[in-house]
């Protein structure tokens, strides 16, 4: 009989290609030869990954195969399932979960461990010969017992095995139930399959469930998506501009506090889960950085990002989102421990897999906005919920929500931008389809200005300093107030500059009250000047000095008047400024040589951004890489084959202990476990001296070979690294 590695040696490049495409972990890193490739392909983690890629039907067929004794043939597999099993079997072979040996189909050794001891809820094979026809006439008591065990789990508990009920007794007598211990009985596989009507599963889920949903108009979908795209770009920009002004403090354990999250949610006018999503986007794309003082600030990359076209900006965000293992949906989930955005607890292994699956379902069903239950049903067929997948349904729901926020979908159905993005097409159409930017605003006499569309970047940056945003969307409504004008002055603008800018930008004449507001604030701005080290307040206006000296709100500053125009105080300048401002004054800072300290500010973190690492999923390698890998393995195979031959010749000549490389050891061990043959091994003891043992291998588990030692007759475990070599007897 052929082993799995023999099988691998026999297949052509095309088969390798399809194997590696389906299981990229086999070539990352590229294994030196086929023996090591076989070992990796038969290792439990790799098998588990491969099983994760199966759909419900393929998994059913694999389970059915798991119930058969090896070697088996297609016909018996079909008997247990359905004619369609042939197609599934072909797929299972192509990804190396079943392989054709010379005597029939076989499973890689550890596969049974991975799919579990009770595939499809079936118990072990009966040792005794059974007369299954008797089951047709089983008494009612026995039928009741059987009904409970038939669809698994096959184990049932009885009060006391020595004193069972009449049904159990009838079954035990005919070996239709086998006692496991004092209280447990188990239903043998044959009995269950017989009672299941000769099939392994109640229902063969050959075809995927049909996706139900609302049919959407393609034009509306794309319109909605482009609106979402422009919104998400605006959100990210506004978030970072906000943090540039007021950096958030990272929590000691890492991440963003609930309070800061709420502040941003409020600022952006979105809910907290959306805010968490936006902050995570910025984090994934290195647009933010945590500096040495644990402040979260925009990084230099933000400025570069801002200079890109909208399509490029969007692609940066969408690409990072697509592959990340971080799940922003976990933030602030009801009835769960609070998980911080940007924190260390957001990684989930299957996140990007579920995301990719969700998006592929969306793109296979264009112009349909799926209904949630139907979507989940299809999703669970495509990727049956197994280990680590407890979050699968929530992950899918979050992905749908986030795809909408990103504009990959619009009105719930995938957009042309989403399709283009997933296919890796040129996304320039986003630039063309985004609403044209406008280069003007309309100033109205109620001190608001309206940008009737997305503003040109330069203008919106300037306006953001001079005015407060009151309403967002396709258009932006800005409101001017004393505070916002003061902020612009604080940024180093003069009153005349502000006026000139607004007159130039506004399509409507500047209302007089706004002009007065600017002039008034500019006139007052900087009248009060506050020093930094030995903080002082200076003002040429003695009445104003009198006013602040008398202001009860300023009592805490303990002001002292040292000259008609100068007041000093013991607080540091920043506090003084703050308190003065809070009390309604308009102070400005002053340098040691009497110059006003104000200038344009753009806060950027000095530290290098450290985006989170993607865990869990392995990115699919390109075809070139796969071909290179195949060449490398073939070359490695040739040379290691030669070496093995040389070593064998040498050892036969010397009559010494068997010596094989680690990979050859595993390969041989796997083969002998299947063939149930004894073998001779060299095994190093605790002191490093190598002894010769004759053993019957049983299985490999947790880095050890479980085998019966002929010398002692006991089953013991041999640590695989200590096995110096294996040879057949």
């Amino acid at each position, binding site marked *: 009989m052929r082993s799995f590695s023999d099988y691998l040696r026999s297949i052509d490049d095309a088969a390798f290609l399809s194997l590696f495409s389906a299981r990229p972990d086999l070539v990352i890193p590229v294994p030196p030869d086929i023996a090591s490739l076989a070992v990796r392909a038969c290792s439990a983690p790799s098998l588990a990954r491969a099983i994760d890629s199966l759909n419900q039907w393929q998994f059913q067929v694999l389970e059915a195969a798991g119930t058969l004794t090896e070697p088996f043939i297609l016909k018996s597999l079909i008997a247990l399932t359905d004619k369609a099993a042939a197609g599934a079997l072909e797929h299972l072979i192509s990804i190396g979960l079943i392989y054709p040996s010379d005597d029939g189909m076989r499973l890689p050794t550890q596969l049974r461990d991975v799919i579990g001891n009770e595939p499809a809820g079936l118990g072990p094979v009966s040792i005794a010969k059974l007369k299954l026809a008797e089951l047709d006439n089983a008494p009612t008591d026995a039928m009741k017992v059987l009904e409970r065990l038939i669809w698994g789990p096959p184990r049932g508990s009885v009060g006391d095995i020595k004193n069972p009920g009449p049904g159990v007794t009838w079954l035990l007598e005919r070996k239709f139930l086998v006692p496991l211990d004092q209280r447990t009985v188990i239903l043998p596989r044959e009995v269950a399959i017989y009672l299941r009507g000769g099939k392994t599963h109640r229902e063969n889920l050959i075809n995927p469930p049909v996706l139900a949903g609302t049919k959407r108009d393609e034009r509306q979908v794309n*319109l*909605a998506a*482009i*609106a*979402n795209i422009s*919104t998400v770009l605006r959100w990210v920009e506004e978030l970072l501009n906000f943090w540039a002004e007021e950096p958030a403090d990272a929590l000691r354990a890492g991440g963003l506090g609930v309070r800061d999250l709420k502040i941003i949610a409020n600022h952006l*006018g979105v809910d907290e889960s959306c805010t968490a999503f936006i902050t995570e986007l910025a984090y994934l794309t290195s647009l933010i950085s945590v500096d040495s003082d644990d402040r979260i600030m925009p990084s230099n990359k933000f400025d570069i990002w801002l200079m890109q076209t909208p399509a490029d900006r969007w692609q940066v965000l969408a690409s990072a989102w697509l592959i990340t293992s971080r799940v922003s949906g976990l933030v602030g989930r009801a009835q769960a421990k609070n998980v911080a955005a940007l924190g260390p607890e957001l990684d989930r292994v299957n996140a990007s897999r579920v995301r990719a699956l969700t998006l592929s379902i969306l793109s296979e069903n264009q112009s349909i906005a799926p209904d949630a239950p139907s979507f989940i049903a299809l999703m669970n067929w495509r990727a049956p919920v197994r280990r680590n997948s407890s979050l699968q349904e929530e992950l899918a729901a979050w992905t749908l929500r986030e795809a*909408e926020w990103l504009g990959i979908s*619009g*009105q*719930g159905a995938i957009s042309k931008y989403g399709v283009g993005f997933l296919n890796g097409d040129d996304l320039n159409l986003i630039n063309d389809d985004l*609403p044209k930017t406008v280069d003007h605003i*309309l100033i*109205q*006499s*109620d*001190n*608001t200005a*309206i940008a*009737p*569309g997305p503003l040109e970047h330069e203008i919106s940056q300037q306006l953001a300093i001079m005015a407060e945003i009151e*309403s*967002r*969307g*396709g*258009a932006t*409504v800005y409101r001017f107030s*004393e505070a916002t004008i003061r902020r612009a002055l604080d940024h180093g603008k003069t009153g005349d500059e502000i006026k000139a800018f607004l007159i130039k930008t506004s399509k*409507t004449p500047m*209302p*007089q*009250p706004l002009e*007065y*507001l600017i002039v*008034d604030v500019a006139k*007052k701005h900087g009248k009060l000047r506050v020093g930094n080290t030995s903080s002082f307040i200076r003002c040429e206006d003695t*009445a*104003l000095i*009198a*006013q602040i000296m*008398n202001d*009860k*709100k300023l009592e805490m500053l303990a002001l002292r008047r040292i000259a008609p125009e100068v007041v000093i105080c013991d607080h540091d300048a920043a506090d003084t400024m703050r308190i003065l401002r809070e009390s309604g004054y308009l102070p400005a800072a002053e340098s040691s040589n009497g110059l006003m300290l104000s200038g344009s500010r753009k806060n950027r973190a000095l530290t290098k951004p450290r985006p989170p690492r993607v865990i869990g999923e392995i990115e699919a390698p390109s075809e070139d890489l796969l071909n290179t890998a195949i060449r490398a393995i073939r070359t490695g195979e040739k040379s290691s084959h030669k070496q093995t031959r040389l070593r064998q010749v040498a050892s036969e000549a010397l009559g010494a202990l068997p010596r094989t490389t680690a990979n050859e050891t595993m390969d041989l061990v796997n083969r002998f476990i299947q063939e149930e043959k004894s073998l001779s091994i060299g095994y190093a003891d605790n002191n490093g001296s190598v002894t010769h043992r004759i053993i019957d291998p049983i299985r490999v588990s947790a880095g050890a070979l479980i085998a019966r030692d002929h010398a002692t007759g006991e089953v013991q475990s041999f640590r695989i690294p200590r096995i110096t070599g294996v040879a057949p007897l």
Partner: protein
Amino acid sequence: MTDGPLIVQSDKTLLLDIDHPLSTECRRAIAPFAELERSPEHIHTYRLTPLGLWNARAAGHDAEQVIDTLIKYSRYAVPHSILIDVAETMSRYGRLRLEADPVHGLILVTTDTAVLEEVIRARKIAPLLGARIDAETIAVLPSQRGAIKQSLLRLGWPAEDFAGYVDGQAHPIELVQKDWKIRPYQELAAEGFWHGGSGVVVLPCGAGKTIVGAAAMAHAKATTLILVTNTIAARQWREELLKRTTLNEDEIGEYSGSKKEIRPITIATYQVMTKKKNGVYAHLDLFDTHDWGLIIYDEVHLLPAPIFRFTADIQSRRRLGLTATLVREDGMEGEVFSLIGPKRYDVPWKEIESQGYIAPAECIEVRVNLTEGERLLYATAEPENRYRACATTRTKRNVVEALVEKHAGEQVLVIGQYIDQLDELSETLGVPLIKGDTPIKEREILFNKFRTGEITCLVVSKVANFSIDLPDATIAIQVSGAFGSRQEEAQRLGRILRPKADGRTAKFYSVISRDTIDQDFAQNRQRFLAEQGYSYKIIDADDVFQGKI
């Protein structure tokens, strides 16, 4: 993307570009479900609120129509979340209905038992309910009709009220349109109200709200209780009703501090209704003891709290609220809507102005520089006296004098808050003063003299803020006010908005002390009018002295 006039923002505001050719059409289309928030010169702001959407449902519009309208006129893609929200909000309306049952009286009926189960478990609702009749029906205490509607609204499950209104005691009333004609918007407002059953009509000052009231009475043809702010207003209502309707003097009664007449049409003041005798409201019975077919609340934005409470108990009578400025600095607008009824008619001031029904007005802020001494006084004043200190400066008096002189020959009102200041002004200018303690009789004489032109200038305190009809006043000079009250500013402007015989522009001066909180308050006061499209012009006091304006 279309090139529509409407921009739907993600915060549920709608921006309407009024320079767009489709703007009028679009305004008509969105008016049934969106509330007008601001209407300055270029872009009007509307807002989608649950209340507005439910009112639209009540008026027979469904979610699909609303969504279609938004998509049709929108310049950019309408955010999907808003479409979903509109559909969801509107679908909540009408699941609960209040009906009059011949056997059980007032009942709450549902088409969705889950909703009924939810609301009857609410703590605020349970005490208002009677016995459960069947799975879909529960009795409601008839006296709690207002309270239950209010609470259901807060829970987000508004009840559609099919219980109807009592007709009240019939009384024939007709409009008499001999030498005048009801204006189209007044007719629309009255009809909008009548079809809706109850509600609030918002019209600018001077746009003839009394006539909307009279038209509503002509619809109701029943005994009517009219609640007004003060006695002068009561008498003006009476004059108007005599002039515009078939009613004669004997049919109209005044229920005020001085008279207690109850007639088919009774005009009562808020003051007398809320007067307490031995700790109880002695006159609130007026609501109950007569079978009124209609209750009109004039200047509904001033509705005092006890009246609110009582209004909740008379939900089976038709209620009409009238106001120009439904902004309350106490934020009680919501209460007005749920107790009197939703807004049934609203129109931008500037639109009425463009139709010529109110006089065009120019708003001018005159900034005066304080003298050095005044500044020092202001600077050292206690915080609670600061506004007074800067609002009543001597410098202002000179400006007022110059302004009055400049407008000699026109009808001028000088309006202020502080009596000392007004006393001084009255003395300086040599004109009579009307204030709180001026007897009604004397007030009436002075107002009449002003109307006939015998006096051309009057100094008035806040007693003249509302409901005083002075058709020929063209100039108002405001020297001080109730801090930053937006509606006071609008009401004061309203005193001079009656259309002038010669089509003259009215002028509204505010005299403000520069660089003080007077200026800050002025900014807040001006917000409402600025949002209505009035643009303020700022000039310097020196310009007044030099005659540059």
